[in-house]
Protein backbone atom coordinates (compact mmCIF):
# COMPACT_ATOMS: atom_id res chain seq x y z
CA UNK A 1 0.00 0.00 0.00
CA UNK A 2 1.14 3.55 -0.64
CA UNK A 3 1.22 5.79 2.39
CA UNK A 4 2.74 8.91 0.87
CA UNK A 5 0.73 10.87 -1.66
CA UNK A 6 2.43 13.56 -3.69
CA UNK A 7 0.77 16.67 -4.98
CA UNK A 8 0.69 17.79 -7.74
CA UNK A 9 0.92 14.71 -9.95
CA UNK A 10 2.68 16.75 -12.61
CA UNK A 11 4.44 20.10 -12.70
CA UNK A 12 5.78 22.04 -15.66
CA UNK A 13 8.06 25.04 -15.10
CA UNK A 14 10.73 27.06 -16.86
CA UNK A 15 14.40 27.07 -16.04
CA UNK A 16 15.19 29.39 -13.18
CA UNK A 17 11.81 29.03 -11.53
CA UNK A 18 11.26 27.24 -8.24
CA UNK A 19 9.40 23.92 -8.05
CA UNK A 20 7.44 22.89 -4.98
CA UNK A 21 5.81 19.53 -4.41
CA UNK A 22 4.03 18.19 -1.38
CA UNK A 23 3.67 14.82 0.29
CA UNK A 24 0.97 13.76 2.72
CA UNK A 25 1.04 10.59 4.76
CA UNK A 26 -1.19 8.80 7.22
CA UNK A 27 0.73 7.19 10.08
CA UNK A 28 3.44 8.25 12.52
CA UNK A 29 6.90 8.10 11.05
CA UNK A 30 10.54 7.70 12.01
CA UNK A 31 11.69 9.55 8.94
CA UNK A 32 10.58 10.71 5.53
CA UNK A 33 12.77 10.50 2.44
CA UNK A 34 12.70 12.11 -0.98
CA UNK A 35 13.96 10.38 -4.13
CA UNK A 36 14.39 11.38 -7.76
CA UNK A 37 13.90 9.08 -10.73
CA UNK A 38 15.02 9.93 -14.22
CA UNK A 39 13.03 8.26 -16.97
CA UNK A 40 13.81 4.54 -17.20
CA UNK A 41 16.35 4.62 -14.37
CA UNK A 42 16.51 3.66 -10.73
CA UNK A 43 15.69 5.99 -7.88
CA UNK A 44 18.31 8.28 -6.38
CA UNK A 45 18.11 9.29 -2.74
CA UNK A 46 17.94 13.07 -2.21
CA UNK A 47 17.22 13.86 1.44
CA UNK A 48 16.20 12.07 4.64
CA UNK A 49 14.42 14.12 7.30
CA UNK A 50 13.77 12.65 10.72
CA UNK A 51 10.55 13.09 12.65
CA UNK A 52 12.18 15.49 15.11
CA UNK A 53 13.48 17.75 12.33
CA UNK A 54 11.46 20.51 10.69
CA UNK A 55 13.65 21.60 7.80
CA UNK A 56 16.64 20.33 5.90
CA UNK A 57 18.71 21.69 3.03
CA UNK A 58 20.93 20.08 0.44
CA UNK A 59 22.26 22.36 -2.29
CA UNK A 60 19.23 23.72 -4.17
CA UNK A 61 16.87 21.40 -2.31
CA UNK A 62 14.87 22.34 0.76
CA UNK A 63 12.65 19.87 2.58
CA UNK A 64 10.20 20.69 5.34
CA UNK A 65 8.33 18.32 7.61
CA UNK A 66 5.19 19.05 9.62
CA UNK A 67 4.38 15.98 11.69
CA UNK A 68 1.24 17.58 13.15
CA UNK A 69 -0.19 17.84 9.63
CA UNK A 70 1.51 14.67 8.45
CA UNK A 71 2.95 16.46 5.46
CA UNK A 72 6.26 17.33 3.85
CA UNK A 73 7.32 19.56 1.00
CA UNK A 74 10.26 19.52 -1.39
CA UNK A 75 11.40 22.79 -2.90
CA UNK A 76 13.84 22.91 -5.81
CA UNK A 77 15.18 26.42 -6.26
CA UNK A 78 16.48 27.89 -9.52
CA UNK A 79 15.47 24.79 -11.46
CA UNK A 80 17.49 23.47 -14.39
CA UNK A 81 16.56 21.28 -17.35
CA UNK A 82 18.51 18.48 -15.64
CA UNK A 83 15.99 18.56 -12.77
CA UNK A 84 13.40 17.03 -15.11
CA UNK A 85 12.45 13.80 -13.37
CA UNK A 86 9.85 12.16 -11.15
CA UNK A 87 10.12 12.87 -7.45
CA UNK A 88 8.89 10.47 -4.80
CA UNK A 89 8.42 10.74 -1.08
CA UNK A 90 8.80 7.63 1.04
CA UNK A 91 7.87 7.12 4.67
CA UNK A 92 9.46 4.93 7.31
CA UNK A 93 6.57 4.18 9.68
CA UNK A 94 7.15 3.79 13.40
CA UNK A 95 4.89 0.73 13.32
CA UNK A 96 7.27 -1.05 10.94
CA UNK A 97 10.02 -2.72 12.92
CA UNK A 98 12.12 -3.34 9.83
CA UNK A 99 12.12 0.23 8.61
CA UNK A 100 10.63 -0.60 5.24
CA UNK A 101 9.64 2.36 3.08
CA UNK A 102 6.22 3.16 1.64
CA UNK A 103 6.47 5.17 -1.58
CA UNK A 104 3.99 7.60 -3.02
CA UNK A 105 2.99 7.73 -6.69
CA UNK A 106 5.34 10.63 -7.41
CA UNK A 107 5.32 14.09 -8.95
CA UNK A 108 6.50 14.34 -12.53
CA UNK A 109 8.48 17.55 -13.02
CA UNK A 110 9.34 18.96 -16.45
CA UNK A 111 11.73 21.90 -16.63
CA UNK A 112 11.85 23.62 -20.01
CA UNK A 113 14.79 25.76 -21.13
Amino acid sequence: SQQGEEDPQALSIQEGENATMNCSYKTSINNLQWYRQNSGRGLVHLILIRSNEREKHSGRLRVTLDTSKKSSSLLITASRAADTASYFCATDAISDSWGKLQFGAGTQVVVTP
Partner: protein
Amino acid sequence: SQTIHQWPATLVQPVGSPLSLECTVEGTSNPNLYWYRQAAGRGLQLLFYSVGIGQISSEVPQNLSASRPQDRQFILSSKKLLLSDSGFYLCAWSARGGRQPQHFGDGTRLSIL
Protein backbone atom coordinates in the same frame (compact mmCIF):
# COMPACT_ATOMS: atom_id res chain seq x y z
CA SER B 1 32.31 3.09 -2.51
CA GLN B 2 29.20 0.93 -2.70
CA THR B 3 27.66 -0.11 -5.99
CA ILE B 4 24.64 -2.13 -6.98
CA HIS B 5 24.35 -4.07 -10.20
CA GLN B 6 21.11 -5.35 -11.65
CA TRP B 7 20.65 -7.31 -14.84
CA PRO B 8 19.42 -7.70 -17.44
CA ALA B 9 18.31 -4.16 -18.25
CA THR B 10 15.57 -5.34 -20.57
CA LEU B 11 13.84 -8.69 -20.89
CA VAL B 12 11.05 -9.95 -23.13
CA GLN B 13 9.57 -13.26 -22.09
CA PRO B 14 6.59 -15.37 -23.23
CA VAL B 15 3.75 -16.15 -20.85
CA GLY B 16 4.46 -19.30 -18.88
CA SER B 17 8.25 -19.05 -19.13
CA PRO B 18 10.54 -18.93 -16.09
CA LEU B 19 12.26 -15.81 -14.78
CA SER B 20 15.49 -15.06 -13.01
CA LEU B 21 16.60 -11.50 -12.25
CA GLU B 22 19.83 -10.98 -10.37
CA CYS B 23 21.08 -8.17 -8.19
CA THR B 24 24.47 -7.86 -6.53
CA VAL B 25 25.88 -5.26 -4.18
CA GLU B 26 29.55 -4.39 -3.76
CA GLY B 27 31.42 -2.42 -1.15
CA THR B 28 29.23 -3.17 1.86
CA SER B 29 28.48 -6.08 4.15
CA ASN B 30 25.23 -7.38 5.65
CA PRO B 31 22.97 -5.03 3.70
CA ASN B 32 19.20 -5.10 3.77
CA LEU B 33 18.04 -5.99 0.25
CA TYR B 34 14.76 -5.18 -1.48
CA TRP B 35 12.88 -6.04 -4.67
CA TYR B 36 10.29 -3.55 -5.93
CA ARG B 37 7.98 -3.45 -8.92
CA GLN B 38 6.92 -0.21 -10.53
CA ALA B 39 3.93 0.02 -12.86
CA ALA B 40 4.08 2.72 -15.54
CA GLY B 41 3.66 6.19 -14.02
CA ARG B 42 3.21 4.81 -10.53
CA GLY B 43 5.08 4.47 -7.28
CA LEU B 44 6.99 1.47 -6.06
CA GLN B 45 5.43 -1.68 -4.70
CA LEU B 46 7.66 -3.63 -2.32
CA LEU B 47 7.74 -7.30 -3.30
CA PHE B 48 10.40 -8.85 -1.07
CA TYR B 49 12.97 -7.77 1.46
CA SER B 50 15.82 -9.58 3.16
CA VAL B 51 17.82 -8.84 6.28
CA GLY B 52 20.26 -11.72 5.86
CA ILE B 53 21.27 -14.82 3.91
CA GLY B 54 18.29 -17.11 3.45
CA GLN B 55 15.96 -14.65 5.24
CA ILE B 56 13.24 -13.50 2.87
CA SER B 57 10.00 -11.72 3.68
CA SER B 58 7.23 -11.42 1.12
CA GLU B 59 5.00 -8.38 1.02
CA VAL B 60 2.60 -9.35 -1.73
CA PRO B 61 1.27 -12.84 -2.54
CA GLN B 62 2.05 -13.66 -6.14
CA ASN B 63 3.80 -16.16 -8.37
CA LEU B 64 7.18 -14.56 -7.76
CA SER B 65 9.78 -15.70 -5.26
CA ALA B 66 13.09 -14.35 -4.02
CA SER B 67 16.27 -15.90 -2.72
CA ARG B 68 19.45 -14.63 -1.12
CA PRO B 69 22.11 -17.31 -1.59
CA GLN B 70 24.96 -14.99 -0.63
CA ASP B 71 25.24 -11.92 1.56
CA ARG B 72 25.26 -9.47 -1.34
CA GLN B 73 23.24 -11.38 -3.93
CA PHE B 74 19.47 -11.16 -4.30
CA ILE B 75 17.55 -13.09 -6.95
CA LEU B 76 13.96 -12.67 -8.11
CA SER B 77 12.41 -15.73 -9.74
CA SER B 78 9.26 -17.15 -11.19
CA LYS B 79 8.47 -20.63 -12.46
CA LYS B 80 5.73 -19.42 -14.83
CA LEU B 81 5.30 -15.81 -15.80
CA LEU B 82 1.89 -14.17 -16.14
CA LEU B 83 0.96 -11.20 -18.31
CA SER B 84 0.43 -9.23 -15.10
CA ASP B 85 4.11 -9.70 -14.19
CA SER B 86 5.10 -7.09 -16.76
CA GLY B 87 6.70 -4.02 -15.23
CA PHE B 88 9.85 -2.31 -14.11
CA TYR B 89 11.69 -4.26 -11.41
CA LEU B 90 14.07 -2.48 -9.09
CA CYS B 91 16.55 -3.89 -6.61
CA ALA B 92 17.77 -1.76 -3.71
CA TRP B 93 19.97 -2.02 -0.66
CA SER B 94 20.27 -0.16 2.61
CA ALA B 95 22.59 -0.37 5.56
CA ARG B 96 21.83 -3.07 8.11
CA GLY B 97 18.94 -2.22 10.38
CA GLY B 98 16.99 -0.18 7.86
CA ARG B 99 15.85 3.35 8.70
CA GLN B 100 18.49 4.51 6.24
CA PRO B 101 18.45 5.72 2.65
CA GLN B 102 17.95 3.03 0.06
CA HIS B 103 20.20 2.78 -2.98
CA PHE B 104 18.72 1.49 -6.21
CA GLY B 105 19.94 -0.37 -9.24
CA ASP B 106 19.00 0.78 -12.71
CA GLY B 107 16.13 -1.67 -12.98
CA THR B 108 14.94 -4.37 -15.36
CA ARG B 109 12.16 -3.63 -17.83
CA LEU B 110 10.21 -6.90 -18.11
CA SER B 111 7.70 -7.37 -20.92
CA ILE B 112 5.55 -10.47 -21.08
CA LEU B 113 4.14 -11.48 -24.46
